[in-house]
């Protein structure tokens, strides 16, 4: 569950990045509306409202993430690892390879023996 929330947090940060791009785009659209000979006031209000809303979303999202990190982060680096399980799995695979090799040897001995069998 914690890993899915970590994935969710990273996805939330991705969406915040897209939101930042939307902030700049809405600001540009609002100013572009002003450039026209006859600016449409409703459009201008709409773009400005979208700009303010997306800016607000960015700020609240990022301050939420920073709050979470203040609760969770310590000064120490994480020292856990999965190395022991990895080593044991490597040894198990080594055992399997060894058993395969011995069986191959036995197979060759048996085949050799059966090819010489008719000479008995």
């Amino acid at each position: 569950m914690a890993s899915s929330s970590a994935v969710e947090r990273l996805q939330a940060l991705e969406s915040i990045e897209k939101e930042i791009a939307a902030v700049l785009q809405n600001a540009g659209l609002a100013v572009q509306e002003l450039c026209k000979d006859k600016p449409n006031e409703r459009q201008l209000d709409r773009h400005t409202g979208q700009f303010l809303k997306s800016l607000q979303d960015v700020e609240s999202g990022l301050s939420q993430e920073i709050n979470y990190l203040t609760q969770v982060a310590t000064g120490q680096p994480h020292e856990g690892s999965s190395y022991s399980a990895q080593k044991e799995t490597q040894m198990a695979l080594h055992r399997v390879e060894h058993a395969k090799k011995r069986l191959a040897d036995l197979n060759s001995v048996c085949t050799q023996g059966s090819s010489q069998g008719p000479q008995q």
Partner: protein
Amino acid sequence: MSQQRGITQSKESLLKSYNKRLKDDVKSILDNFTEILKAAKVEEQNQVSTLTQSDQARYEMHVRAANIVRAGESLMKLVSDLKTFLILNDFPSVNEGINQRTQQLKAIQGECDTKLLALRDDMAADLYDLEEEYYSSRHK
């Protein structure tokens, strides 16, 4: 212990700097946008001619727009820094990732060992016949 406190303080100051960067950048975007809209107002002729006034307003708008873009880029960098910090320091998720990997590896190891034990049992039965054949032949 004092070294740990020192490290924790630097992490706290790092997070405070993130907060400050966020507030500064958002304030910069908002202020510059407001000033652009203010500068778009057509004013009556003042001391300078209209051409100079419009040139000055255009230059000011260029600079403020560049400021908005700079603040947006700085926010993107902040998001990237937060992502790095989250991946490295979010201990619950790091622990969960390590546990999942350990369980996966233990499952593989258990499967290998179970299959080897089943193989051993089969071989024991077959070896009985093989040994009988070998010891009763003239090649022993």
